[in-house]
């Protein structure tokens, strides 16, 4: 009933003021969420609609940064050996209610244990619900890392790890670690509708889930009992609008306040429009070309370096990114801590490149460049990018054949250790930790999988493995900075670009912050008078 009266109020206010009512914020999103239980999925679209408005995590990212602050845990302590982390939980945090469930108790340690146990323990009754495959839990190596979780008392939990792991706290701020209500889960299991956790989510977040119609609309209302500062708008509405041009028209017409992912080609026109404000920030991503460093002549760092010097990156930024990108010189983006700014990018110098190749005894080189068949934030048009490189390489006498496969095939075949050719690919950060780029994409463990350069270089690997187990961020920074210098010397990739994320919105929208991790967060967004 409460929800209804909220809605009636919102409706009346909106009737007076048109769609742009001061009480409801309309966000034109790019697609439907796969569901509302963030641990089951991996896409940003799903996280925007589930973990951000509805849920909280033990730790959370400070808006606009990749730094972590306390969330549902008020504080944490890391033991000296780095293998035990004790979280002190926040008291008095209330879960939402819906037509099937009203909580009888506040958030406590049982909810934390349930949240992780269902993902890691095959015996947990929720482990197989909704076809649970727990991609992120597996992807962040939680099964190997997490030995056990111990409930010390209602508001203290200890995580026992198998080894020290510095990014662990940042992992606890990731969407898959969103805290569910064990009481709700038990009630739904008893009622025979366990999939309600995914379809009618209950969390502790700033907004309460109200209704969802696939491919059309998601409605939320403000959580009046939120433990943090309450959301500034009474209602949050996601108007699902898959076409970017249509999203743009909707913002223009005032049917949406904020939109996601504009067409790069429209950005300039938007900036010129007085009714639209465009915010921008470098995305936490990198687009690269990975050589196969195990296949000659690409096993020779000088050959790789020479090829890198033949690429006109500025032309790629202008043509492929239409200006909405910046040249990448490091494998991690500049918004990430430990970014090594003293590194100098390989100069664009075809003559020197040609001479270098000759020096290494490489002539009449033919190679393949793999172009992805899909559009990604880190590479909006891989085919075009490959064509530009083909042209660049022909200047230094290297003959390029462009190949492509269907996306699934592409991902699979590009992982092969004996792959023929250099692969265009990229990465978007998960948790803001440099380990999430450097170890996943360039560590020896990733060879044959996510390390597409098939590059296992001991000095580099030693640095990143050392940094992974340290807890002091300053010490870790030094090691990662050093690792980036090694990377640049060895050149397993041609680092190409970091894209820029644009967020167009109506001028009356107040306090929107572009999040470097790419998620869209609305609890502190309101309207200026």
């Amino acid at each position, binding site marked *: 009933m409460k929800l209804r009266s909220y809605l009636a109020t919102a409706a009346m206010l909106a*009737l007076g003021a048109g769609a742009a009512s001061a009480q409801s914020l309309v966000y034109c999103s790019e697609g439907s969420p796969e569901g509302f239980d963030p641990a089951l999925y991996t896409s940003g679209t799903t996280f925007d609609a589930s973990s951000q408005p509805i849920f909280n995590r033990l730790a959370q990212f400070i808006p606009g940064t990749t730094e972590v602050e306390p969330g549902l845990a008020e504080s944490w302590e890391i033991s000296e050996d780095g293998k035990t982390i004790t979280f002190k939980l926040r008291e008095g945090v209330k879960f939402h209610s819906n037509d099937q469930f009203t909580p009888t108790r506040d958030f406590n340690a049982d909810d934390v244990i349930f949240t992780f146990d269902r993902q890691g323990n095959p015996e947990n009754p929720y482990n197989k619900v909704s076809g649970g495959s727990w*991609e992120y839990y597996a992807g962040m190596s939680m099964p190997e890392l997490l030995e056990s979780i111990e409930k010390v008392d209602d508001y203290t939990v200890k995580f026992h790890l198998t080894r020290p792991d510095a990014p662990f706290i940042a992992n606890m701020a990731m969407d898959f670690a969103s805290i569910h209500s064990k009481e709700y889960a038990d009630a739904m299991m008893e009622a025979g509708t366990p999939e309600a956790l995914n379809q009618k989510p209950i969390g502790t977040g700033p907004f309460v889930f109200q209704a969802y119609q696939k491919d*059309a609309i998601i409605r939320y209302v403000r959580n009046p009992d939120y433990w943090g500062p309450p959301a500034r708008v009474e209602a949050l509405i996601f108007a699902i*609008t898959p076409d970017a041009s*249509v999203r743009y*028209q*909707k913002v*223009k017409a005032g049917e949406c306040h904020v939109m996601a992912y504009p067409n790069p080609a429209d950005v300039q026109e938007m900036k010129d429009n007085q009714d639209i404000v465009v915010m921008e920030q470098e995305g936490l991503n990198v687009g690269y070309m990975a050589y196969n460093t195990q296949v000659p002549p690409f096993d020779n760092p000088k050959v790789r370096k020479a090829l890198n010097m033949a690429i006109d990156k500025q032309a790629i930024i202008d043509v492929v990114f239409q200006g909405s990108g910046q040249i990448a010189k490091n494998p991690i983006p500049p918004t990430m801590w430990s970014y090594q700014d003293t590194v100098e990018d390989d100069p664009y110098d075809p003559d020197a490149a040609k001479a270098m190749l000759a020096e290494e005894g490489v002539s009449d080189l033919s190679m393949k460049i793999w172009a992805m068949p899909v559009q990604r934030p880190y590479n909006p048009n891989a085919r075009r990018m490959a064509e530009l490189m083909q042209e660049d390489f022909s200047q230094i006498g290297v003959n390029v054949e462009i190949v492509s496969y269907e996306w*699934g095939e592409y991902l699979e075949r590009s992982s092969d250790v004996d792959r023929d050719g250099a692969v265009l690919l990229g990465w978007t950060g998960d948790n803001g930790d440099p380990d999430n780029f450097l170890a996943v994409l360039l560590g020896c463990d990733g060879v044959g999988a996510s390390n597409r350069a098939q590059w296992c270089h001991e000095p580099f690997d030693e640095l990143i493995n050392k940094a992974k187990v340290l807890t002091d961020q300053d010490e870790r920074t030094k090691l990662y900075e050093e690792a980036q210098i090694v990377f640049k010397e060895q050149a397993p990739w041609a680092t190409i670009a970091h894209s820029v994320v644009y967020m167009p919105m109506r001028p009356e929208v107040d306090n929107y912050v572009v999040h470097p991790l790419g998620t869209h967060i609305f609890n502190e967004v309101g309207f200026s008078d």
Partner: protein
Amino acid sequence: MLKYLAARLLTFVPTFIGVTLISFAFIRLLPGDPIIVMAGERGMTEERYAELSAQLGFDRPIYVQFWEYLTGVLQGDLGQSFVTRRPVWDEFFSLFPATLELSIFAMIFALALGLPAGVIAAVNRGKFFDRALMSTALVGYSMPIFWWALLLIIIFSGQLGWTPVSGRIDLIYYFSNPTGFMVIDAIKSGQEGALASALRHLVLPAIVLGTIPLAVIARQTRSAMLEVLGEDYIRTARAKGLPPLRINGIHALRNALIPVITVIGLSVGTLLAGAILTETIFSWPGIGKWMVDSIFRRDYPVVQGGLLLIAVMVMLVNLTVDLLYGVINPKIRKR
């Protein structure tokens, strides 16, 4: 008549099995492994791959998978989407009303303009009006839906502000137990302005989706009418001094309708194909967009289940069309 219906229904059986097999094979013939697509850039270990493969049942021989699918279908179980983990059946029926509503309005638009346009063109054969109408129809038929939709949005929603850009109803309206047919829900709710809002949202998508059928119907009506207008009984009717409206509207049109109705039946396929683009542009939550997304994600159960259900719909519509022939032309009924 009943005998005819039974015979027609019998032909459904092999078609149905064929469609089941084709839809099952079609998505599997496409390159691309749904598990790899799920893992994305991160990739996954072989053990993890094997685990997921077993979870989704891919580790069993293909004929076992097909048999399970077929027995499931016969029991009304189309499986669960790999992506949303919801039953395909539920997803289809939560989205289908939107497609159906849009298609009905598109068809009403196409018929309301296409039939009179065809008749008028035939009666004025060779004159300016005929040429103008038929060239317009040709343009309509050749127009890329995507471009046409964006053009209408930019003019009518962006510049003039007459129609909403996309969606099915203004965001302020909210119905608690919807049927999925927005027009019906709006009437049922009794909320002031809801029906008008739903209809305003239907205008542009219905025009876009109805444009190709409109062109086809207009051209088909014209040529069928021309044929009939040359018949002896029309000359007789003219000689009897019947008013032209009566001759053209009743004597000629009724006989010209048979081929037109065939075209309408066949247009159902065109409508569903057109719905894919129209729905994507207008953010219309129907099955067209749902199918396309699922093909890209290699969501096997959704693609095969969705194709099957769409095929059944098309079969039913064509059956209805066949039965309609009998209503319009008693000669067919007697055969």
